[in-house]
């Protein structure tokens, strides 16, 4: 038995993304959840499963208390950092397919601009315990510093350049400029990228995602139930998670240029009965520009080392061969640990993409990445 088409995304919701909301992560995650429930045409009391993201948003008990749910049947957490939201789609699909529940709420709320910044968040994730004891005292304290050696190694082995990274930053900002829900909308140029201040070489400021407040949520439902609901049904056709070798310690990983995504992608494509050429639009986790380039390779859109060329020659803009991060991503729309990538993919497949709608988008892909290298993927289709 596979999870192919055994669950569907029935509703999506998000709050405004702001830099300083004065609101708690709890309130933001609940507001987004109510929006997702309303989008699906459900009552909050219909939710019978919940997968909250680890952090400062709601936990399962908050959902029960605030939504007055009398019999929550399933709750779980998926501790994979930025890979968690998409891996939670797999978890929800498995629970629904097993008959445990019918409507699973997956949610996140963040007050990152006010409170839990990246350099402190990373120290709280369980996987960092293994490596933190040895690398924190040396001054390797943030994701930018931990991932920079992966990018540097890719440049060394394959000739990838900072110009390739800049292309990703510029194209993503072009998409954000079309999105009135994005925080960073002012167009940027390759020169702007190169002139932005260095954070941790080779990453400059415009290679890095931003910090903001907000909430986002999705509802995964039984496909029969989703067919009866308010919105066009978006089926989860293939989904998988992948963990790289030496998952907690990047330093000890044999090949620094491969992420867990490389292990997950073949499983997800096989489950969906599809291949990369079938994908009309891709929302790819973009905590840093390089991470997008690396995943384009690991997903099989091109060979390892060809990511820079793929971006230059095939294109990741709205008119490119593979439109990527049509909402502006973590780099420019906002950082919701990739929950906003799921929201955007569902909107694209429903034809609700607004000015950034990819024409005739029927099949799409969303990825998560985090926790030092974990990858997650979901291939979805309208249907």
């Amino acid at each position, binding site marked *: 038995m596979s999870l192919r088409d055994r669950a569907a995304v029935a509703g999506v919701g998000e709050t405004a993304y702001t830099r300083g909301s004065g609101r708690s992560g709890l309130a933001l995650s609940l507001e987004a959840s109510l929006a997702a429930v309303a989008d699906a045409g459900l009552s909050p009391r219909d939710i019978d499963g919940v997968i909250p993201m680890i952090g400062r948003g709601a936990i399962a008990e908050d959902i029960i208390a605030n939504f007055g749910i009398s019999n929550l049947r399933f709750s779980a957490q998926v501790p994979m950092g930025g890979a968690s939201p998409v891996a939670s789609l797999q978890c929800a699909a498995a629970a629904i397919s097993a008959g445990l529940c019918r409507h699973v709420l997956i949610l996140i709320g963040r007050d990152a601009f006010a409170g839990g910044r990246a350099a402190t968040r990373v*120290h709280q994730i369980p996987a960092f315990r293994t490596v*933190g*004891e040895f690398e924190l*005292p040396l*001054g*390797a304290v*943030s994701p930018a510093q931990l991932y920079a050696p992966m990018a540097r190694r890719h440049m060394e082995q394959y000739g990838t350049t900072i110009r390739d990274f800049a292309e990703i930053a510029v194209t993503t900002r072009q998409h954000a400029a079309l999105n009135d829900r994005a925080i960073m909308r002012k167009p940027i140029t390759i020169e702007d990228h190169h002139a932005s201040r260095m*954070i941790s*070489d080779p990453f400059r400021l415009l290679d890095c995602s931003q910090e903001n407040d907000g909430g986002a949520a999705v509802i995964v439902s039984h496909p029969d139930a989703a067919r009866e609901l308010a919105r066009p049904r978006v089926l989860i056709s293939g989904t998988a998670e992948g963990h790289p070798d030496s998952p907690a310690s990047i*330093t000890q990983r044999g090949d620094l240029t491969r992420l867990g995504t490389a292990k997950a992608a073949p499983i997800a494509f096989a489950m969906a009965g599809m291949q990369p050429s079938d994908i009309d639009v891709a929302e790819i986790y973009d905590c840093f520009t390089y991470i997008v380039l690396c995943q384009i390779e690991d997903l099989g859109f091109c060979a390892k080392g060809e990511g820079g060329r793929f971006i230059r020659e095939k294109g990741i803009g709205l008119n490119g061969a593979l439109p990527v991060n049509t909402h502006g991503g973590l780099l420019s729309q906002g950082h919701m640990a990739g929950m906003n990538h799921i929201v955007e993919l569902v909107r694209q497949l429903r034809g609700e993409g607004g000015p950034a709608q990819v024409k005739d988008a029927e099949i799409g892909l969303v990825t998560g990445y985090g926790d030092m290298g974990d990858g997650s993927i979901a291939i979805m289709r309208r249907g």
Partner: protein
Amino acid sequence: MMNEDFPLPTPGPESAPYWAGLREGRLLIQKCGCCGKLRHYPRPVCDDCFSMQCDWVQVSGRGTIHSWTRTHHAFLPAFRADAPYILVTVDLEEGPRMNARLRGDGQDPIIGASVICKFEAHDDNWTFPSFALV
């Protein structure tokens, strides 16, 4: 200088010998007591033969640069005075890798360049590794 924000290690039973070795100017890593495979960072089980027996062996400290980054933005106040600083990922001669500061002239490191481990006393209790070009 005492710095209350400095992220000092909190060793457990598996890692205490590593830190004790650094204090003595010796770079120690785990060697499986059954099959002999070296591993780092410290952990309880050998991933080849699953033995929980292990010895601590001194390695040469010699290696080559596998990758690097130069940090300009200090993410914690404790490292603000140090920035910019270079972190190198080093392939040790014996196999496992290390991550540590590169001391020297501040030039861009060259991948493949030879380095040697040094021992820097942070305070009376803690010694941290660093690397210098050979």
